[in-house]
Structures are given as structure tokens and as C-alpha cells.
């Protein structure tokens, strides 16, 4: 297949940008002018359409394939979300209008205000910032809030505790925020080892970052002990809310005792992943961190007017240019309003039901390192297939692609050897899940009878397995022009 540049024909035009007056370039002093070629293609609109629509057809997506990608919550993205975010009143509004004439953008401000209130209620927290653009950005926001809190109390803190099973972004965010990371291993039950945690805890620990339910899909049974231990040392409790989908309406981070939780709106609240973004990583905090939230915030006056407020002496300052990925906020607000209280509870119940159904149906065929009721996802290991036939998790993933399923997350969490992490989400029907289970069983059987077939998969995709070593050694990051 050709690149768009290879379709280029000198003189061909896609979109007419408009008539430029002769001599317009004289309006720019020669010494400021671009001399080099922009290296852009010259193609027609039809060329562009065919090229990119054909590219789209090389992808798997939620709208075309079942996507049980653990920890990513690839649920269906309702189309009304898209329609609402594209309304001209939202899509065409300049963000600086909030700075120069807030009375003209009341709709946008009210939406942010209402969404924040709903998310505070969902998480049992006091207040919310919509600024963070993604989960990892929310984590960094949380770490900086932690730092501001300790600074205000004159605490000298150096460390952040992160269990081994956490998302890799947790330690990366803690380090980026200026802290040294202490890792704690998981125990036999699949949660952070509470005794080791107690041992490592000290007054220099700024915070503890926990994913709940954790990346093994398990709810930590001793969560109350963890909260108590952290409190004794004035450490902030951070909840990575990537897995919030499992507990909507069942338990709230704020009620547990967490001080910070970030939510991935592109996971729990059905906004599309877009092939890797944009997302939104909204952060909610407890009472003691409210003063430090990023500025500006959206407030409501007694007269019912929505305004932006910069008067936060203690604020860490802005994390984003404006209010975050507003278009994503609109989608999430639509989703929450539409589902409402009962609908959101139904989400977590069906998500957990689907995951447990898969867990039970597949455990005869794949090792299940922690065999207990799971939440929204279950983590298998391919070590039986590796030992018996040399078939690895990645081979199983590729064989699933061949069968029309996007693979689960593999090799994560790191604490499980040859991990296969399956999160079906609540939007999938029993029939779809049964089809997936059948495929997984067929692959397990084939791994014994014809392992080579699995190791060579996939054979029906636009490309077979790419050589990743070559890509990293001989860096080729742009098209030949």
C-alpha cells in the first residue's frame, strides 16, 4: 500500500484554500520568509478520502470487533455522545471567551460545573478538577496536589509507595513529581502485602498509590487496614481509578478514605479511545486537598451565574491550557445523564458478571494464578501453554486476532508470568462472550495438537508479525520523500 506522499502529483489540489491577492507575500519581510519546501503532498480530495478510508479498514475497533482489553475498559461508545459534542454551541466556542465574557458561554461552564458535581458524588469526594487530559496526567496532578499539601503543613516527605501490580504510569508520575518510589510486592491473595507495607511505611512517605480494584481485578480485602496505616503517618491516599467501572454505586473511593482519585472518562464513562487518545483524566479530591486544586475552577454565584475563579492562593496552578478536553467532558456528561443512578449501578454489575463468567469458563484451560471472585477483569497465565508446548501469551493474542477478536492485555500486570488480562466490559452480550470463550478454548487445544499454527498466527491480517527489533534498531520514523 502506498503512502499519501506517493500519490502526490505536482499541481494537484485537494481543497481550495481561497483566493490570495497577487503580491500578498510582499506583506511579509523577506528575511522572515520560509525558504524550504513544506514537503506536503499534492492530492485531490478523493485521493485523500480513499486513502484514509482504506487505512481505517486495516483497524480493529470496538464498533467492529470484541475488544476484551484488560484495564482499558473498551466498552461501547454511544453515538449520541458524538452528536452532542459536535453541537456548534460546544464545538465552536473559543475557550478564552470564559476569560473575556463568561456570560456568553454559560452553557459550557454549566456543563463543567454539573459534570464535576456528578463525578464528586460518584466518587464520594468533595471537589473535582476537569483539567487533566489523560489518566497519567491526572496522576501527575494528584502527585503535585500531594506535594502542595505536605508543603503547606511543613511536612518533609520524600517517598511514594506503589505496589508492584500498579500501572507503570504510577511510579513514572511519582518520579516526575519529584518523589522516590518504594515498591511493595503483592501477597498470595493478590493484593499489596499489608505487613510489608506496614514495615516500609514511615513519616517520610508522602503518599500511597493504589489501584482499586487492582490490576489483578481484585478488591483488596484489607483496604481499611491500609488506610489506617497511611493515616498514622499523614500520607495521602491516592486511588488510581482506572478500574472504577467495577465499583460504580458499589463503593466510593471517598467513603473508603482515599484523598485523591483520578477517573479515566475514556474508560468508565464511555468516551471513545480514538486510537490512543484524546481521553480525560479528571481528578476528585477529599476536603483536605480542595484548596490546592488546579486553577482556574468553575464556580456558581448565588445569582446562578457560572464563572471562572482564579482566587486560589494555595492552588498548584493550571495543569492544562483551559478546562481539559472539553469535547470529552461533554461525551461523559451525556453518558452519565442518560444512564443515571440505576444505569450506572447496572454497569458495574454487568461488568463484574461478564468477567466472572469468563473466569469460570476458562479456568479449566488456562492457569488462573489467583482463583477467587474477581471484579471487572480476570487475569490468566499462559505458563501451562509455555511449559508444555512453547506457546506464549503473545502467540495466544495473535491467534485471537486471526479469529476476529482483539486480544486481551498481555504481559501485564508484571506480577503474573505470561499474563493474559481479560476485561469484557458490561456492553457485551452473552453470545459475544461465548464466542470469545470458544475461541480461547480452541486455541488452548490447538496449542497442544498444533502449536506451530498458533506460533505463526495471524495469517489473515494486513500484515503478519512485524519485526520490532528492526524497527528500534534502524529507526525509520518518516516516509521517504
Amino acid at each position, binding site marked *: 500500500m502506498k503512502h499519501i506522499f506517493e500519490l502526490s502529483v505536482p499541481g494537484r489540489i485537494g481543497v481550495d484554500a481561497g483566493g490570495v491577492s497577487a503580491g500578498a507575500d510582499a506583506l511579509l519581510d523577506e528575511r522572515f520568509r520560509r525558504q524550504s519546501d513544506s514537503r506536503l503532498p499534492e492530492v485531490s480530495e478523493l485521493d485523500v478520502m480513499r486513502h484514509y478510508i482504506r487505512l*481505517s479498514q486495516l483497524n480493529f475497533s470496538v464498533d467492529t470487533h470484541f475488544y476484551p482489553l484488560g484495564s482499558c475498559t473498551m466498552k461501547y461508545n*454511544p453515538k449520541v455522545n458524538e452528536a452532542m459534542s459536535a453541537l456548534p454551541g460546544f464545538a465552536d466556542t473559543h475557550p478564552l471567551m470564559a476569560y473575556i465574557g463568561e456570560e456568553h458561554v454559560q452553557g459550557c461552564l454549566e456543563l463543567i460545573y454539573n459534570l464535576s458535581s456528578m463525578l464528586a458524588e460518584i466518587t464520594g469526594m468533595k471537589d473535582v478538577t476537569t483539567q487533566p487530559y489523560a489518566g497519567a496526567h491526572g496522576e501527575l496532578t494528584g502527585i503535585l496536589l500531594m506535594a502542595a499539601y505536605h508543603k503547606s503543613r511543613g511536612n518533609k516527605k520524600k517517598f511514594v509507595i506503589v505496589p508492584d501490580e500498579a500501572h507503570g504510569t504510577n511510579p513514572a508520575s511519582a518520579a516526575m513529581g519529584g518523589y522516590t518510589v518504594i515498591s511493595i510486592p503483592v501477597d498470595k491473595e493478590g493484593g499489596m502485602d499489608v505487613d510489608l507495607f506496614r514495615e516500609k511505611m514511615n513519616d517520610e512517605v508522602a503518599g500511597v498509590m493504589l489501584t482499586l480494584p487492582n490490576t489483578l481485578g481484585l478488591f483488596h480485602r484489607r483496604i481499611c487496614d491500609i488506610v489506617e496505616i497511611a493515616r498514622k503517618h499523614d500520607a495521602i491516599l491516592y486511588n488510581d481509578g482506572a478500574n472504577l467501572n467495577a465499583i460504580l454505586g458499589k463503593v466510593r473511593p471517598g467513603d473508603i478514605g482515599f484523598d485523591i482519585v483520578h477517573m479515566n472518562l475514556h474508560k468508565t464513562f464511555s468516551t471513545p479511545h480514538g486510537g490512543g487518545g484524546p481521553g480525560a483524566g479528571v481528578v476528585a479530591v477529599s476536603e483536605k486537598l480542595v484548596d490546592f486544586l488546579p486553577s482556574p475552577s468553575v464556580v456558581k454565584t448565588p445569582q446562578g451565574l457560572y464563572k471562572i475563579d482564579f482566587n486560589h492562593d494555595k492552588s498548584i496552578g493550571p495543569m492544562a491550557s483551559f478546562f481539559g478536553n472539553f469535547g470529552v467532558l461533554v461525551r461523559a456528561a451525556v453518558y452519565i445523564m442518560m444512564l443515571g443512578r440505576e444505569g450506572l449501578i447496572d454497569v458495574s454489575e454487568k461488568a463484574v458478571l461478564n468477567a466472572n463468567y469468563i473466569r469460570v469458563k476458562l479456568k479449566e484451560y488456562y492457569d488462573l494464578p489467583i482463583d477467587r471472585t474477581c471484579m471487572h477483569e480476570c487475569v490468566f497465565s499462559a505458563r501451562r501453554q509455555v511449559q508444555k508446548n512453547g506457546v506464549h501469551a503473545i502467540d495466544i493474542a495473535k491467534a485471537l486476532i486471526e479469529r476476529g477478536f482483539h486480544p486481551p492485555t498481555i504481559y501485564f500486570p508484571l506480577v503474573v508470568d505470561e499474563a493474559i488480562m481479560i476485561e469484557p466490559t458490561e456492553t457485551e452480550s452473552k453470545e459475544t462472550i461465548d464466542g470469545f470463550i470458544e475461541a480461547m478454548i480452541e486455541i488452548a487445544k490447538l496449542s497442544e495438537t498444533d502449536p506451530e499454527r498458533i506460533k505463526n498466527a495471524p495469517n489473515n491480517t494486513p500484515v503478519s508479525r512485524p519485526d520490532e527489533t528492526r524497527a528500534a534498531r534502524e529507526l525509520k520514523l518518516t516516509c521517504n520523500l
Partner: protein
Amino acid sequence: MARFTPHTDRDVRQMLDDIGVESVDKLFTDIPKNLRPESFDLPAGKSENETVSIFNDLARRNRTDLVSFLGGGYYDHFIPAAVDTVSSRSEFFTAYTPYQPEASQGTLRAIFEYQTMIAGIAGLDYANASLYDGGTALYEAIAMAVRTNNRKKVIVDAGVNPLFKRIIRTYVINIDVDIIEVDLKEIYTDTDRLEAHLDENTAALVVQNPNFFGIVNDFGELFEKAHTSGIVNILVFYPISLGIIKTPGEMKADIAVGEGQSLGMPLSFGGPYLGLMAVEKKFVRKMPGRIVGETVDRDGRQSFVLTLQAREQHIRREKATSNICSNQALCALRAVVYLSLMGKEGFRNTALLCLERAEYMKAQLKKIKGVRVMDGQTFNEFTAVLPLPAGDFVDRMFAGGFAAGLPASVFYKDKDSHLIIGVTEKRSIKEIDDYAAAARKVLS
């Protein structure tokens, strides 16, 4: 009430039987009873129909009738219809990050082309797969510089977008990096003063072109001097301007970052936008975020993968280059489609039209008594000094149907009467004439 769970009662019964529990509630027994929610006080669910009417009402409470001359780094540019058509393809917008290359060649190829185009317009060697937005991209560039030369001092021109500067200050509150801001000479970037701040302890020099007040510069000489002290040169650019203006590459910038909103993204009240980053060759392995590379598959066919992933958080955890774990893939897709449709000629013409319309606006304003248009080369945004506070002027212009510009005092407290006016190719000659007429009335 709308629901997206397809389970019938019979499905639920069968699944529970297979799991071996009698009720769904039994699946939640790991959650201690005393932790069950004290409240979950949300509105009742609604049908799609009811929901649409609520959001239509909300959207209507934003004014869409204003003719906008508001910029400040975010602009009302034309977006060809085909951009929406491509980006609303389900196969693109409901896909995940392309970790499984066999199932994601579409996204990977589109991003590979995007990287090529961003490098091309910036006149540099490489670009990454995009970052969150312009402001956060600038922080990532600074972090790269600090990683490269292990220095702590960063010199930032006051003419860099104030929104970006604020973000940087937030990011460094708990780490050892000093941000030193160098004052403008009224609205002009003061290269002499910047130069005086450069020394062997400086990690990076950050300037913006055009600066926040619209002034165009050539930083070539300044960058050359900075290089002799081992300083990393970071240029904040405005992609549309590069249709005609000297590129970061031509000025010998090491890292170029910018807000990519103008490349086909609606303004959408602040996001999603697109963080652009392009670098000179030797910085490529220090570049944060995702990068798509070309390779071959087992059958020797050209294929694309996410590469250099070993540096990132999944593997390096606390030692990763950055904590960034996503890119604005869908926005990058919009940008690549936008740039393909524009092509060489459209890209240049769009820039020329912006320049031409802005100059026309300047000429009209100069005719109004009491208005002083600031001198100096500009592109599509410029500064005018008014005989009254710019905020008051903007307020009165709303009544006439105009978003008249950005009062500089929003960000620069000492510049009360300075108004920053942005003009894009979308503004017609008639709209500009009408603006001038309305302004004359307000100022008379």
C-alpha cells in the same frame, strides 16, 4: 432510560448458574459491608431523546453568532468537511492504542504520515505521534533539555503564551528546575536581554514565534549563540504560520513544539487539542511519548509498529522518559487529513490569506482616531493600543456581535489598553469592514 447492557434476565440467570453464585450481589462480597456507599445521589436515567434536548439547551446557552477575532494561540480556522468524515469513521475513533500492530495498521500508518508531515512543516528531522496540547508539549521539551545537558536553569521569553508558561510553573513545583522569565520591551521580544541571560548553566532557551502579541522574529542568530554554550533551543511555533514563515529548522531550533489546534481541530472550549513536537535528529531517542516506526513483517512486507517503547512507563516505570501513556491520536488523524487536503499550495495560501486579512484589518483600524496599531512584522495577529481599557472595548463590541479580540491585561497586568486581535482566513473583507465600523462607533 437508555442502557447499553444487553443482558436479558435469562442471560443473567444462566451466567450466575455457571459461575455458581445465586445473585449478582454475591460477586461483590469482597467489598466490606461498612464501605457500601453512604449516598449515590444522581439523577434518574433518561431516554436518548430526553438527553438530547437537555444538551441542546445547554449548547444554546453559548453564543454562536459572534464574529470572532479572538486568538491567543487558538484560532477559528476553516476545517474542510472531509476531515470530519474521516475522523468519524468508527474504525479510527473506537480503536485503542495500536499495541497490536496486526490489528492496527490503519492508525499506525496514519500516524507515520502525521510524523512525516509535522517534521516537514517544521523543517526538522523527526516528530513524535503527538502530545496532549501545546502547553504540556512545551514542558516535555524542557524536560528533554534538562535530561540532555543535566542543567537546571531555563530561560523563557515573556512573549511565550502565558497559558503555557503557567503550566510549566505548575509542573516544576516539586522538582529542581528554575524557570527564569525575561521581560519584553513593551510587546517586543528582547533578544539582547535574552542573550545576556545565557550561560553554561542554562539548560534551555524558550522563545515563541510569532510571540504572544503577534510579533514575528528570526531567532537564528540567538540560537547560534546559545548553541555555543551547549544550550538546547526550544521554539514554540504556530503551525499555520509555517506556510510562509521561516521554520524552526531554518532557525536551527533543536526542539519545536506547538499547539496543533489550528490543523483541523474545532475550538471546542479548550480541547481536545494537539501537542506538536518535532526535533533535530540527535534528540530523537530522548523524545517522549509514542513514536511509530517502519519495519517488515515475517513475510517481508512493509509494516508499522510503535517503537522505542522500552523507554516508556510500562517497562521503565519510575525511570521512564515521561509518564505520558497516550497521544491525541484522533486529533493527529484530523491534522494529517487536514494537511493532505491543503497540500503544498493550500497550506501556503491559507497562511497568505491570514496575513493579508490581518494587514487589511490593521489598515482599517489605523484610520480610526485614537487607535494605535503597534509596529513590527506580524502574521495573523497583532496588537492595537486603544484610547480606553481594552476590556471595556471588548464588552461594548459584544453588543455589536463581535468577539473583538483579547485584552492583553487578561495576562499582562500592566497592558490595560492593549488589544490582541486575531484574523484568520475565515474572516471576510465585509466582516472586517463591519468590525471597523462598529469599533469607530464604540470609540467615538
